[in-house]
């Protein structure tokens, strides 16, 4: 008995109202004390009735959280009575306060022990239960005797209580319990007692005790194994109908762990339990189903038959009973439907939602409807789902629309679904429009052939009516992707760009950039100014990703428009498969834990199914909350988290789970990106990109070639870049774009610090000596250097470079070539020495790279010179 006395008072002891109650109750408690004292010794007729009234008062105080422990002595004194109602109330009181007042508890031992020998079995049982419920460690010595005789009592009620008493004793002092050899007495009782509740309690107690002992004692683990041995299982199964429904669940749970030796045994058990499927108690039915499913796991045909067999009882359970019970059953049905949708495909009408069902039920049903959709029922299911879209329950309406989309992506009868989706768009409810837009986008990615129908409708949607970031992003994506089919796409995009600052979602701004780019390649004259504005706004954006992407687009446009087009607007490939939400392995593991909380949470507990090891569930929950957080975190963080986690076996599994979910969130986006080849980087890659960006290479953000397929597009650029013949673009053209967009690049590229090599500022070398030396000397170093965009721009006048290099004491002896390739020969002399450095430098303006060959009299310093040269060259155009 534990009314939350402490918890209710302690948090607010300082609150005035709390104090007030305390003061009042204090006087009342002392009043009670007085009255109890008067009654304690009284033998007057009717005294029991007055005692009852007083006891009731005491207990009611106790329940509402007033501390009445000060009455302990008086209560015990008054309990010397034959009135069983009084005794019960007294036991209740004692049980509540004994733990916090161990000294007072000692007072009660005496009368409880005496009551344990009472001639009324009820009183014996009650006293024994109270005795064991005191939970005071230093009183265990008083328990052993009464428990021992209780287990042998002729009355089954006393035995039943005594068995649970043994378990309580075990929790107070395991060693006392084991030393008194109680487990083996329980085992004997379990196999021989005539009362089934005694048997059931023995089973519960033994399972708990042996599971806890098994880690330290081999004998205990052997005993635990013995519980699921054939004789025990058969003994229990044969009596199963005598057990109470709760005890039946217990037995069935045990049977689940039993491994029959052959298939005839399996059929025997199943035949024996067949009628349990018709039980009105859902717990019994589910436990039976679990046995059936487990037994037949390896027998595919029978397993299938089991599905057919359990279908009807499950559906009946769903529709009888309270909504809560339905929910528990429905969760299990959900699991089965997900495992074998085809078995339930004709029962889809059972998964229709009723308008008054709670949303947690509707959500499960929607998922089931999605799962069971096939060629024959898609039309009906989608019709039904469409009705939910107008649901007053907005989250459910949204999910219904998503469900329609999922079914569409599953492949069946797309024709009908597309029509429906388009009707959603016309419904003019903002959330419906929003969800439908996202879906239409996904649909077009899988079925581009529908673009014509969809675009016609999408084009009518005013972007002003779409506020949700995801929907807005989807709309913008379509505007970009199908700009050639939508009359006013450039103008819509333009107005969106104009309101750049009011757009709070980075996702939308990213999509807007890409869409404007796409539109530009399809309808350049109409989009030109919007593109300029978008890139300018993008580069000035505070958001790192937006900024990066804008810069990238700008640079690739500068570099080569046709390359840019191939990068941003490649031919589309339809997405064929979308990622699954949960790995089948996890589904299997949840299935193994059928009829447990795992099914409701849709999370795995642990593979070691010890129901009494308490930490497991605690952990799951921690895990599951982490999982939620993980959804919004980058995958890389998840691994770190996982490493911090303890060595618990399941930590690993759950780690996987959370990754699975996160991946689920990430993957679809990844798909778009990959498919679009438009360089939307997923979070983890951005990390890398950012990292390398800071390394300061000037033009193209370098990519780590070792990365995933997302980089296909980058590789493409690089190949384009490294092959100058492909790039038929003049620096003038790039410049023109720069002018067109009206941009200057403010950021100066990072420059390596110049090394300690000093050059002669007034070096001189005549051309013939240069030629001679060039022929004689081997190439000391050959490298590629990036040239800043400004540098490339400045190269329109090669003289500028010569002057620039001269200011770094590197002199030009010859130059030539024309756009895009310029060739220069430089030389330099070491300060106060006659050691010469000769350089051949070929600059390609379209790739913004310089191929440099260095020859030196003093080979040892050629590296230093190279660094110096690179530094000088990279500063070109910025100073």
């Amino acid at each position: 008995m534990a009314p939350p006395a402490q918890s209710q008072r302690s948090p607010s002891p300082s609150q005035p109202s709390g104090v007030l109650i305390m003061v009042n109750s204090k006087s009342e408690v002392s009043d009670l004390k007085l009255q109890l004292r008067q009654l304690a010794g009284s033998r007057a007729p009717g005294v029991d009735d007055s005692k009852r009234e007083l006891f009731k008062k005491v207990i009611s105080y106790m329940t509402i959280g007033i501390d009445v422990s000060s009455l302990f002595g008086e209560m015990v004194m008054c309990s010397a009575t034959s009135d069983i109602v009084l005794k019960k109330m007294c036991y209740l009181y004692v049980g509540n306060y004994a733990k916090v007042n161990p000294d007072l508890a000692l007072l009660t031992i005496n009368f409880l022990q005496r009551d344990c020998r009472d001639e009324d079995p009820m009183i014996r049982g009650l006293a024994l239960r109270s005795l064991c419920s005191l939970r005071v460690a230093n009183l265990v010595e008083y328990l052993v005797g009464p428990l021992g005789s209780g287990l042998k009592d002729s009355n089954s009620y006393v035995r039943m209580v005594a068995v649970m008493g043994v378990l309580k004793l075990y929790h107070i002092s395991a060693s006392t319990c084991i030393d008194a050899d109680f487990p083996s007495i329980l085992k004997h009782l379990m196999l021989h007692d005539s009362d089934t509740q005694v048997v059931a309690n023995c089973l519960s107690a033994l399972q708990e005790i042996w599971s806890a002992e098994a880690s330290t004692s081999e004998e205990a683990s052997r005993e635990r194994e013995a519980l699921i041995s054939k004789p025990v299982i058969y003994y229990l199964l044969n009596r199963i109908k005598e057990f109470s429904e709760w005890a039946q669940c217990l037995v069935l749970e045990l049977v689940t762990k039993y491994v029959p030796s052959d298939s005839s045994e399996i059929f025997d058990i199943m035949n024996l339990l067949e009628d349990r499927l018709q039980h009105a108690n859902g717990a019994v039915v589910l436990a039976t189903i679990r046995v059936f499913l487990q037994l037949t796991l390896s027998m595919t045909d029978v397993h299938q038959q089991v599905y057919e067999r359990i279908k009807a009882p499950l559906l009946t359970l769903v529709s009888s009973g309270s909504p809560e019970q339905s929910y528990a059953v429905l969760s299990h049905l959900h699991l089965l439907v997900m495992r074998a949708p085809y078995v339930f495909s004709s029962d889809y009408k059972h998964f229709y939602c009723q308008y008054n069902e709670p949303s947690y039920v509707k959500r499960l049903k929607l998922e089931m409807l999605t799962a069971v959709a096939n060629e024959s029922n898609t039309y009906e299911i989608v019709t039904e789902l469409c009705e939910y879209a107008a649901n007053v329950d907005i989250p459910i309406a949204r999910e219904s629309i998503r469900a329609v989309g999922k079914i569409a992506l599953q492949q069946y009868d797309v024709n009908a679904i597309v029509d429906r989706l388009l009707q959603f768009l016309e419904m003019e409810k903002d959330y419906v429009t929003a969800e439908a837009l996202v879906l239409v986008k996904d649909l077009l990615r899988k079925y581009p052939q529908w673009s014509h129908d969809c675009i016609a409708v999408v084009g009518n949607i005013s972007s002003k009516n779409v506020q949700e970031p995801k929907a807005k992003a989807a709309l913008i994506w379509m505007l970009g992707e199908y700009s050639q089919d939508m009359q006013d796409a450039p103008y819509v995009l333009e107005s969106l760009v104009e309101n750049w600052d009011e757009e709070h979602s980075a996702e939308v701004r990213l999509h807007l950039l890409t869409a404007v780019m796409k539109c530009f390649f399809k309808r350049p004259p109409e989009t030109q100014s919007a593109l300029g504005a978008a890139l300018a706004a993008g580069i000035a954006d505070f958001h790192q990703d937006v900024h990066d992407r804008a810069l990238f687009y700008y640079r690739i446009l500068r570099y080569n428009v046709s390359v840019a087009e191939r990068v941003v607007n490649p031919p589309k490939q339809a997405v064929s498969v979308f990622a699954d939400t949960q790995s089948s392995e996890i589904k299997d593991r949840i299935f193994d834990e059928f009829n447990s909380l795992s099914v409701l949470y849709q999370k795995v507990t642990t593979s070691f199914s010890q129901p009494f090891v308490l930490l497991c569930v605690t952990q799951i929950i921690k895990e599951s909350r982490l999982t939620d957080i993980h959804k919004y975190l980058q995958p890389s963080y998840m691994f770190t988290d996982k490493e911090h986690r303890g060595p618990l076996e399941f930590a690993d599994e759950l780690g996987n789970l959370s990754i699975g979910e996160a991946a689920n969130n990430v993957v679809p986006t990844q798909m778009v990106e990959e498919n679009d080849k438009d360089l939307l980087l997923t979070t983890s890659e951005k990390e890398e990109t950012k990292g390398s960006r800071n390394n300061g290479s000037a033009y193209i953000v370098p990519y780590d070639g070792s990365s995933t397929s997302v980089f296909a597009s980058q590789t493409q650029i690089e190949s384009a870049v490294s092959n100058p013949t492909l790039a038929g673009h003049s620096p003038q053209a790039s410049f023109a774009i720069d002018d067109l967009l009206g941009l200057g690049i403010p950021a100066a590229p990072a420059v390596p610090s110049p090394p300690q090599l000093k050059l002669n500022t007034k070096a001189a070398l005549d051309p013939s000596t240069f030629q001679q030396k060039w022929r004689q000397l081997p190439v000391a170093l050959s490298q590629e250097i990036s040239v800043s965009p400004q540098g490339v721009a400045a190269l329109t006048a090669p003289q500028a470079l010569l002057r620039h290099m001269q200011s770094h004491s590197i002199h030009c002896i010859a130059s030539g070539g024309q756009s895009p390739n310029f060739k220069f020969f430089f030389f330099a002399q070491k300060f106060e020495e006659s050691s010469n450095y000769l350089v051949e430098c070929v600059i390609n303006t379209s790739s913004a790279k310089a191929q440099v060959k260095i020859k030196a009299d003093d080979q040892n310093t050629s590296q230093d010179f190279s660094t110096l040269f690179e530094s000088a060259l990279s500063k070109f155009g910025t100073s």
Partner: protein
Amino acid sequence: MISQFFVLSQRGDNIVFRDYRGEVAKGSAEIFFRKVKFWKEDGQEEAPPVFNVDGVNYFHVKVVGLLFVATTRVNVSPSLVLELLQRIARVIKDYLGVLSEDSLRKNFVLVYELLDEVIDFGYMQTTSTEVLKSYIFNEPIVVDAARLQPLGPAAIFMQGTKRMPGTAITKSVVANEPGGRKREEIFVDIIEKISVTFSSSGYILTSEIDGTIQMKSYLTGNPEIRLALNEDLSIGRGGELANDYRSSYGSGAVILYDCNFHESVHLDSFDMDRTLALVPPDGEFPVMNYRMTQEFKPPFHINCLIEEAGHIKAEVILKVRAEFPSNITANTVVLEMPLPKYTTRASFELEPGVTGQRTDFKGANKKLEWDLEKFVGGVEHTLRAKLTFSQELHANITKEAGPVSMTFAIPMYNVSRLQVKYLQIAKKSSSYNPYRWVRYVTQANSYN
């Protein structure tokens, strides 16, 4: 195995709190209530019956506005615990006659006594009112049941719990009648809940009956009872019991898709003559739950017409016809219909001279409500509603309005035609009054 059990009022007060194993911190009730109350910030969604906070699993069921909660740290069978909570509520009701916050508070000592016997150290012992009787010694303090309606067909509909039927009989199984001697009584309710969905053209899309035969016995000496059902009753879709499958649907055979039985029911002769033999335990329990997917004649036919009347006006005409015999009357009939969200005003026009009907336009959630106290069989009622909108009409007004949903109860009528042919009590002496109530609750969704 559960750790704690408690009952909270709607305001979150502890009415009963019992800690069985001391594994879960005492503040769990507060944590639970806060979580349930603020499940989602917008308050739109209900908390699921099972959730987990910091490693503690909380199970709850709602019964007559009270929250029955169990906690545990172990991964148990959720059905087991939810089933148990429901059962505890039923046992308490059996004892107290009326389950309410008031009756619980007045009888908490008795409730504790019950809880001690139902669960020991977290393990279920027994939930049988019958068995518990011998352990329980407190007398229930019966709360004033006077404000509850006297027994009668209407009374069973007073408390509108959808799935926990039989709330009508507010008599404790142990308390004595004021007159002293206990009355020998047994109640059998056949309660059918039907769900029908119509398409806009009036065609039935889905129809299902979830039925239960509920029994509440006040018989002393626990005599055996035989309950005979329709002889032509068959179970399963013609597959398993092919020999009983006499004829086609048209001939009136009652075909149950599936059913389950209470554990006290012996089905020895069920296959032969469709009788259920049982020794009814004390208290209320479902003898049998069944489900029918067979087509049946829906008791009401709804017709909804929306006509535009100008740019910012429209008229809704709702017609409902009762398709059951005229000697039967449905009561507490409510029709609801969501209207377009830009509806500003609705004026109603009922048929001239009708009484007991009430109409309302709920401005907050833009809903039309039409209550009919009584609905006599065979009659048709019409409601005209003139709507005024704040903006010009869009093309598709029908998309914005509806679906019409309807709730009602029809006593002494069941659609499935499942019947209790006779109720035989194997006890010679003492007169008994086997009341038979047939309750019938329906919900219907109609789409236009």
